[in-house]
């Protein structure tokens, strides 16, 4: 099956507001059905953080041109769904270790416990320790040592230990 053709069809459906599309010819049968209107809309936009959703407001649409913007953006990796994400609570510079010569707090594969320091974010000359809020294993580190991070940026992907729950 040619998936790029499917992409084509999906774009076509999107463009024309189609919910279902079925086509059969010469032994080929294609049937595409989109999720309901709301889910379809959600599909278009950058996944918002939980705290965005305002009760009075519909789901924010990006301007269609948002993707077209040539602006530099800090990479926003799409964290895998099964990982628990540790996000930056502040703007600053990300450090994996307490000092340039020291060993990193954690590396991929490390087991972590809630409250364990994962990294430091320097902001206004202050070193802010960022702790794990879940027990599990470090599966991904999304940011390179010394990089600037913005608020809400994903730092670590943790494969949570079964039974562990995030602190709120």
């Amino acid at each position, binding site marked *: 099956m040619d998936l790029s053709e499917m992409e084509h069809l999906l774009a076509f459906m999107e463009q024309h507001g189609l919910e279902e599309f079925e086509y059969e010819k010469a032994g080929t049968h294609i049937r595409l059905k989109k999720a309901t209107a709301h889910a379809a809309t959600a599909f278009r936009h950058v996944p918002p953080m939980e705290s965005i959703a305002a009760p009075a407001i519909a789901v924010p649409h990006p301007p269609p041109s948002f993707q077209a913007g040539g602006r530099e953006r800090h990479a926003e990796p799409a964290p895998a769904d099964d990982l628990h994400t540790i996000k930056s609570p502040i703007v600053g510079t990300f450090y994996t270790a307490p000092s340039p010569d020291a060993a990193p707090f954690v590396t991929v594969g490390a087991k972590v416990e809630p409250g364990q320091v994962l990294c430091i974010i320097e902001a206004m000359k202050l070193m802010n320790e960022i702790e794990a809020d879940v027990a599990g294993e470090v599966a991904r580190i999304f940011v390179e040592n010394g990089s600037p*991070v913005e608020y809400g940026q994903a730092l670590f992907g943790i494969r949570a230990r079964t039974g562990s729950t995030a602190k709120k």
Partner: protein
Amino acid sequence: MFRKLLIANRGEIALRVLCACKELGIRTVTVYSEADRHALHVLFADEAICIGPPRSSESYLNIPQVISAAEIANVDAIHPGYGFLSENANFAEVCEASHIAFIGPSPEVIRMMGEKDRARAEMRAAGLPIIPGSDGVVPDEDAAKDVAAEIGLPVMIKAAEGGGGRGMRVVRTKRELIPAFQTARTEAQQAFGSPNVYMEKLIERPRHIEYQVMGDRHGNVTHLGERECSLQRRHQKVLEESPSPVLDAPTRDRIGKQVVDALRKVGYSSAGTVEFLRDASGQMYFIEMNARIQVEHPVTEMVTGVDLVKSQIRMAAGERLENVVGTVKHHGHAIECRVNAEDPETFVPSPGHITAFRVPGGPGVRVDTAAYADAIVPPYYDSLVAKLICHGNDRSEAISRMSRSLDGFIVEGIKTTIPLHRRILSDPDFVAGKFDTHFLDRLLSVQSK
């Protein structure tokens, strides 16, 4: 000139500053809360940094987050826009300490203008007329007579510790003075636990008129004429224009000169606004100064041709007033209507999804907005959706242009104050230039009957 500038604001003013920077060839960094992820100030900037959750206190007002963003983006200047951190002297100080130019006056001047009593005292000392009054508590009846004789009737007696109309009396004739003074003291005692009252000249049918000023970092200050901002609802300006329909040329020049002299004395730099009340007799009284660019600055830009925001930035970078602003010439008349996301009758905010958005164009029309079809107006911030500014060769042309522009302005999905502006523009008293700061309340009370 600056290499890279951070805009510590959102909405139309963030875009406004962004445009100025682009014209000056300065790289732009914007900051945004999570609610503004799809905002145009984020889209159009060279870099954008998320600084916090939707609530202003945790994002746009969060000084450490803003400064951290400025540091990781390595900017050499910050423009605060209006509102948020624009008149926060501490923020201006932190910028200085971080070796980032703050586009605005010095922290000392911001602080002085922020303390309204002190600002009034300083401006009086520097030569501006202020509302005559008792200079503090009026201890007894003899003192009340002296004050009344000095400042002239009518006067207002006000409770020193109070507010909300209690312990307040208007005195129009000599005979009323002592009884009113006594009653006010009694009421004040009952309401606020202190009989202390002070006296101030009553400003009847006041008009709100303000001067746009601009100063460089070399001690030079000029003014760019006045704006008439009497159309207010609950002290929120709704419609502004320049020139004022009532100010005559000699008064304009005389007060303008006093304003410039006063601000030179206090070492004012950058853009600012000096606000006056004008009474029915034409007397002008200083009330306060806003030490920042203002929402209604485009009105002055339209009649002078001076780009105030670019001027602010250039002078913060050290350029001299005479090279940036030059000799100010005024041409024609400009009006600004603030289009807010509000019910035009109840003024209940109306955030939400904008489903259709079409702005008017053509000659003499300017629109400053960060809205667009399919945008969301978040509920967290102020309700200004767009500023519609129209210029004409005279007030009459500006009014007819504004009327047709309001008719051609389509916003759907949210309610806006466009219908209110249509009403104002077609009011005969407004058209005749006859109004004061109570005009809008009267217009709205007629409506509600």
